């Protein structure tokens, strides 16, 4: 009997089909959903992007960063800078947001990689603080109080007019729909890109580095280089998301754009609750997070307290998160990464 090595599982094939249907539904959502739904979906999708990139860093790369707000904030400010100072259109400026985040990621990594484990975590946080304090000195972008995108820049944004005419909506709603489509594109590209990365030789090396740096070195994996690749990739993606989020908000301040709670704490909770080290985890996590927020947001600090306690309990009781519990029980893998051997017969007896 022949052997075949495959990463697919029957469940993953069904999931691919359902996924395709889901994507189509999400794409046409603005044609029948109200503005509130679109804004909620925008929030979910952008948080999902942030969560996927943090998960790539911490769950696959073993690099626990508490400084992701540096890249969100830098991306956002780069977009505002490009629009306000250079008069660029906000939509292409999103790319600049990613590039700006990538640029500050280089010195960040240079410093933070000198620290190990928990100290790396706080190191990234210090650097995010430094970037926040420096940006607050940038008077042309409003200094500590922040600024707004100019009205004509948001009104004349690419595609807005087309959306207004096609869907018959007002300009503000059209901007939300544009932001939603961009977020959907970014989320799909992120999930697809990370899935692809993890299935390449590099990705397998990444898992090896995470599981055992020394052993990985001994089989020729360059752990240092993998760390750089993961860190820069996730900074770029986080910067894109940051630019997009603040393009939709159209108003920025250093405290909001560099908020450790909004852009790192929430993101960590999403990943931990959903299941760290899996692609499915952040998806489940962001849905649970959104549900909790809708239910508990009125309770203010109780809500955050609940999230904190929930994260502690999950980390202690089910460190692989909700998705981990589910896939343990059912053996379900929607994004299978492990290569599985099928066919043939394993012969364990000595003769």
């Amino acid at each position: 009997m022949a052997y075949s090595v495959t990463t697919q599982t029957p469940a993953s094939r069904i999931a691919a089909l359902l996924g395709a249907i889901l994507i189509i539904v999400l794409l046409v959502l603005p044609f029948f959903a109200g503005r509130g739904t679109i804004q909620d979906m925008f929030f979910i999708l952008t948080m999902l992007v942030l969560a996927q990139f943090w998960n790539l860093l911490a769950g696959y790369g073993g690099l626990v960063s508490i400084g992701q707000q540096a890249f969100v904030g830098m991306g956002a400010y780069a977009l505002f800078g490009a629009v306000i100072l250079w008069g660029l259109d906000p939509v292409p400026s999103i790319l600049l947001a990613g590039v700006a985040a990538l640029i500050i990621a280089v010195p960040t990594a240079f410093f933070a990689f000198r620290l190990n484990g928990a100290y790396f975590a706080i190191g990234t946080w210090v650097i995010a603080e430094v970037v926040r304090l420096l940006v607050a000195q940038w008077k042309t972008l409003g200094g500590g109080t922040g600024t707004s995108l100019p009205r004509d820049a948001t009104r004349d944004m690419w595609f807005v007019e087309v959306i207004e005419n096609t869907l018959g909506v007002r300009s503000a709603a059209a901007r939300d729909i544009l932001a939603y489509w961009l977020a959907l594109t970014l989320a799909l590209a992120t999930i697809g890109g990370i899935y692809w990365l993890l299935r390449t030789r590099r990705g397998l090396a990444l898992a090896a580095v995470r599981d055992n740096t020394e052993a990985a070195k001994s089989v020729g994996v360059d752990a240092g280089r993998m760390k750089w690749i993961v860190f820069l990739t996730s900074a770029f993606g986080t910067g894109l998301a940051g630019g997009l989020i603040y393009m939709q908000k159209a108003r920025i301040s250093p405290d909001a754009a560099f908020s450790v709670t909004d852009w790192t704490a929430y993101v960590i909770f999403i990943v931990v609750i959903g299941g760290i080290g899996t692609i499915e985890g952040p998806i489940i996590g962001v849905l649970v997070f959104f549900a909790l927020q809708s239910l508990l947001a009125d309770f203010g600090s109780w809500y955050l307290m609940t999230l904190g306690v929930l994260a502690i309990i999950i980390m202690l009781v089910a460190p692989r998160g909700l998705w981990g519990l589910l896939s343990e029980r059912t053996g379900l893998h929607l994004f299978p990464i492990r290569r599985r051997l099928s066919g043939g017969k394993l012969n364990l007896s000595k003769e």
Partner: protein
Amino acid sequence: MIWIDTIIQGILLGGLYALFASGLSLVFGIMRLVNLAHGDLIVMGAYLILVLVSLLGLSPFIAVFIAMPAMFGVGWVLQRYLLNRTLGDDILPPLLVTFGLSIALQNALLEGFSADSQRLPTNALTTASVDVGPITLGVMPLLTFASAVLVIVGLNQLFYRTELGRAFRATSDDATTASLMGIKPANIFATATGIALVIVTIAALYLGLRANFDPNIGPARLIYAFEAVIIGGLGSLWGTLLGGIIIGVAQTLGAAINPEWQILAGHIAFLIVLLVRPRGLFPRAND
């Protein structure tokens, strides 16, 4: 002259940061655990002293002695029943659990005490100052610095002169072999965190006496503490004091140039040290 004055104020401020940092350094030195809720525990200590002061009408300097054993208990229980379960080769559980704890604690304080800023009641002593030649020094900053030095001397005595200190060092070296000596590593870790929280309470006293505090300022104290520990070299208590001083001096110098640069200057001093001495000024040999 103004510069000398600024530098001396910075050195004294460094005493406060060293107090923030000593507990962090102690816990890291013994169990390689970084408690991300450390700053929030300092703030919690300040609220505990405040509650004792307002309920019992005590002076903060008396209240702190009631708060210390209570905080020791909090630390002991926290370590014994929560944090010990996260120790191991994987760095994620301790980080994420203490991060969750930090957020939960901050918001519990917000719920209990609101976001309004508070201050411990001051008296003549806390606002007094002494003239040393041409320089005027506040009694509070001097007291803070002296307390930091005392705490560090005390911790060094504990570490190198007592049976408990031997057990701390032995458990830190090799917990399994320590258990063969009749030591219970779980209790040793719990005791260490208890002691760390006693130091946190002392730090909280000065935090609350010198300036306003509110539930949100914990993370910034964690960052200063962390910078002092890294600058000094992991596990070196005198290094931690020096680290605190460097952050303090950088901050007062920065503030003297432009008030907005105070915090930034401290962070930049930290990054410069990280650049030239990645393992800190007094690195421990076997880390």
